[in-house]
């Protein structure tokens, strides 16, 4: 009997696992996202202790955290802006100096995406004092940001349950 049942069980297991593996999960993090600029969150947020919301200044009032404008970079880097040829700051310089030219815009690659049917908004999370690292991981230690958590519904629900936040479906889906 085992001669029949064992291969069958293995087959079923393989089938199930491959279904899981190949099923589409748009929220799944993409671990390797190259960025156009070797911008280091470790240096900015870790070493220099710049608060997250200094650059991502919309997080507390909008659904979006805000991608800092080039002017924000220039504000601190000031007269060092030119930088040595080949240094990481050059694209920023170019974007600042020559901003009417589309080819010189900085095109960050998105690290975190949510499917369109999820209406996530940063505002209440910041208001409730959830540390950014809760979802984004220890960004202050990363030279290049890679996602740590897989942000799926289970991840959201666990935290919401724990913190007695809204579990109403329409809170996020409408």
């Amino acid at each position, binding site marked *: 009997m085992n001669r029949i049942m064992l291969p069958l069980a293995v087959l079923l297991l393989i089938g199930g696992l491959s279904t899981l593996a190949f099923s589409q999960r748009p929220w799944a993090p993409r671990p390797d996202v190259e960025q156009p600029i070797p911008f280091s969150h470790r240096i900015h947020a870790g070493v220099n202790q710049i608060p997250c919301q200094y650059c991502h200044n919309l997080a507390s009032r909008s659904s979006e955290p805000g991608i800092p*404008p080039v002017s924000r970079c220039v504000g601190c880097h000031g007269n060092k802006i030119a930088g040595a040829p080949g240094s990481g700051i050059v694209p920023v310089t170019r*974007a600042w100096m020559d901003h009417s030219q589309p080819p010189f815009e900085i095109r960050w690659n*998105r690290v975190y995406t949510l499917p369109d049917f999820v209406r996530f*908004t940063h505002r209440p999370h910041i208001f409730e004092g959830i540390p950014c690292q809760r979802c984004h991981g220890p960004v202050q230690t990363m030279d290049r940001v890679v996602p740590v958590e897989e942000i799926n519904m289970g991840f959201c629900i666990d935290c919401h349950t724990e913190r007695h936040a809204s579990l*109403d479906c*329409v809170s996020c*889906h*409408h």
Partner: protein
Amino acid sequence: MSSGLSRRSFLKLAASASAAAAVPGCEPAARKLIPYVVADPNVTPGIPSFFATICNECPAGCGLLATVREGRATHLDGNPEDPISQGSICARGQAGLQGLYNPDRLPHPMSRNAGGTLTRVSWDDAMKTVNSKLGAASKAGKDRVAFLGGAQGPSLRDVMSAWAAANNSSRVLYYSPFSNQGMREAAETLFGRRDLPVFRIDQAEVLISFGANFLETWISPVEFGRQYSEFRAPKERRGSTTIGRAFYVGPRLSTTAAKCDEWIAVAPGAETEIGFAILSVMLKQRWVSQNSGVDLDALAKLVASYDAAAVGKRTGVPVDTINRMAEAFGKANGALAISGSDDPASHLAAFVLNSATGNFGKTVMFLQDAPQGATNKAEVVKSFVDDLRAGKIDVLVVAGTNPVYSMPPEYRAAEALQKVPFVIWAGGVPDETAAMANLLLPMHHPLESWRDRNPRAGIWGLGQPVMQPVFESRDLGDIVLSTIQNPKWATSAEAVKATWQDLGTKAGGSFDDFWVKARREGGLFQDQHVADVKLNLASVQAPAPYTAPEISLYSYPHIFLYDGRGADKPWLQELPEPISQIVWDDWAEIHPDTARKLEVTDNAIVELKTEFGIIQVPALVRPTVMPDVIAVPFGLGHTAMGRYAANVGANPFAVLGAGRMSASVTVRPTGDSRKLVTPLGKSEQLGRSIVEAMTIEQLAAGEVPEGHEPEVKGPYEFYPAWDYPKHKWGMTIDVNACIGCSSCVAACYAENNVPFVGKEGVDNGHIMSWIRIERFYPEAHEENPPLMYLAPILCQQCDHAPCEPVCPVFASYHTEEGLNGQIYNRCVGTRYCENNCPYKVRRFNWFLPEWPSPLNLQLNPDVAVRGAGVMEKCTFCIQRIQYGELDALQEKRAVRDGEIVPACAQACPAHAITFGDIKDPASAMMRRRDQNKLRNYQILSELNTQPAVVYLRDLHSAKGKA
């Protein structure tokens, strides 16, 4: 907009932050994030900005508040500061967005070669051509260059005059087909003024409308809608509870007529007779106010041949009806007669009626200042077209008007345009006039440009651009100013600012403060003194007695398409005309008796022949039109104007005389047919309580209609009732206030990304609107029914929602705040919920919805776009509720009553819809219920679905009492 951002990257950013094109399911969101170089202070991703501006969809000149998300205008509302719109706006105004994002807008300049084909040209080349043509023409002689435009504001008029002058010309003309020429003529005869008076329906007790569709298209429908709901609200007047009594005299039971107490059906042109007959009765009965200052002898002479009996004979209106109207009008404390007829004599009658009862200055008034006439007199326009035909003009610029489509056939506008060597057309979607132009220039949409408006004395509307241009278009003022040397203003923005500099100087104070305030409030609004006008009957001639043609054609501006400018907007085409409920087509309403005589049935195409020409229209056999009158709306019958407008229906302008809306007509069934499409099933309620009505007499006596409960009964619970810890959202809808204008429907389309489906889609039962204006005819057995039942039907958010427990996957469920939530991404599409919904308010996505680019830029990023196979429905604008609750949370306070307003309630000009928290008895919504306890009802309440929506019954006067 800040200059630090190129338009392309800005649009890309907009796209990345939006959810517009994505579909619930698997499509990945945008993967690139492109930062600003310098942050635009007006654009905060995720947070809407609001810009006050003005509406350009009709001459009313409503103030708008545009919601701009990530640099894209996504929603238009009324500007609360503006005295005309007061925070509400009609469907046409909202659809302005679809003019802005119309996929058929001219994307770049185009030039027509000798062969007649259009080729793309650059702006530089186009302007070079324009300059050389203008140069040659202005050198050739005086007045060889001309401009023909639609109604325009003062600044652009200045610009155009300056441009014409620089080109050695004075020919600047403004033409629009509905410019109330009849009323202006009558006012000139009687009072010596050519401007339009101000009407205050809310100050009257009795209203007689001679064919004026003041709730649809007449002069300023949003304002009148608000006033009319005030007028119709039950009030204590002289010791008893009454509502304003309204009579509609006209050939067609329009939406306006349907909201009146009585519809007196007369053939087009006979309204005048009734007006004079009423005057004659009032004179005889001494109901004419003694101190009105009206010359009674002159009046007696005027109405001599309009004895009620004679008029009754000529028009077929019972004498009793005329007497009743006269009595009501004469005895009212505040009465108003208005006319929308094409016959100047009917306006005369209306003015005299108002004067004779001493209502001038109370319900109708002229203000001390008169605004500049918006359009030119008909004679002037006609002689101009004659000049065109005579070859007296070398270069003609046409913008903002469509003479080929809307000018009367006797002007022979198309022929005239052919005689002009060089026609420059500037505009959005290329229309019939563009088809005859040599050079086509894409013009900014009004929402992309600076302009102003002076619709009436004291009201100066300021229009500012709300977003970057969508296409490679330019502002009309900028185009013409660039053709003249050393212009007074470099751009039209400067011209507008200069105008406002003058206004600011008059207002006093710092101009900078004034300018900021004007831009924030959307204009300058000042109180105006009422002018003291004197009625002069001396020069008035009594019109010749009326003889009815055997069959007459009656045309009226379509409530949504107006003079044809709405036809390119899919929302307006898809909104069912409230009375006929027809979409995406035009129709010839024919009374059943007449239809029997002519042997036509529904959908049979009839040929209507007047002295000017022939149109062919499918018949719609309905009792909503006077026998022997065939009613065809204006607005369709375009041969160009993009994919949505072209080749739909027929154009009545082409068969009517100048300034006329009716004509004698011969009718011939062609034998062909075209299916008229409507989303409406049956026209009767079959005794079910969907839209309810009661008479004011019943309300005053404290009775309720037979077989109905006096108030909404407490819920019957079989199981323990659920608790709603925070809020429980509800709505009160006053059917009496509802004017059927469908503004709520348009607002819902805009706010909730509801797709349009086209004629075939509607025919296939795929219409997607979440809220609809339901229209029912009264049934034969009903005692004292209203003329028509009209009410908005949307999801009732039932506590015992039948749709919820049948969903196998919890896609439909009840939220903690009492809403009937629908989770689109969980839906598998069994459609069981819609089967079990008694109100049939759920909509299924039969296909993947499509918004041809760039219409998709209008989509609200706060609402998911639903994919194919998903059920969707109204959730009282859950995104707005959430936004309001988050605001309250962040400010550590409770949600304030009135802070959260769903799109439909916000849009309603008549304030028929109130939204609020059922748990808060002090909320405006709950107070409205309590104050009208006798009128409360719920739709199909016997099913114990316990809706969160409570309706207030429609009110009207009992038969013969009105």
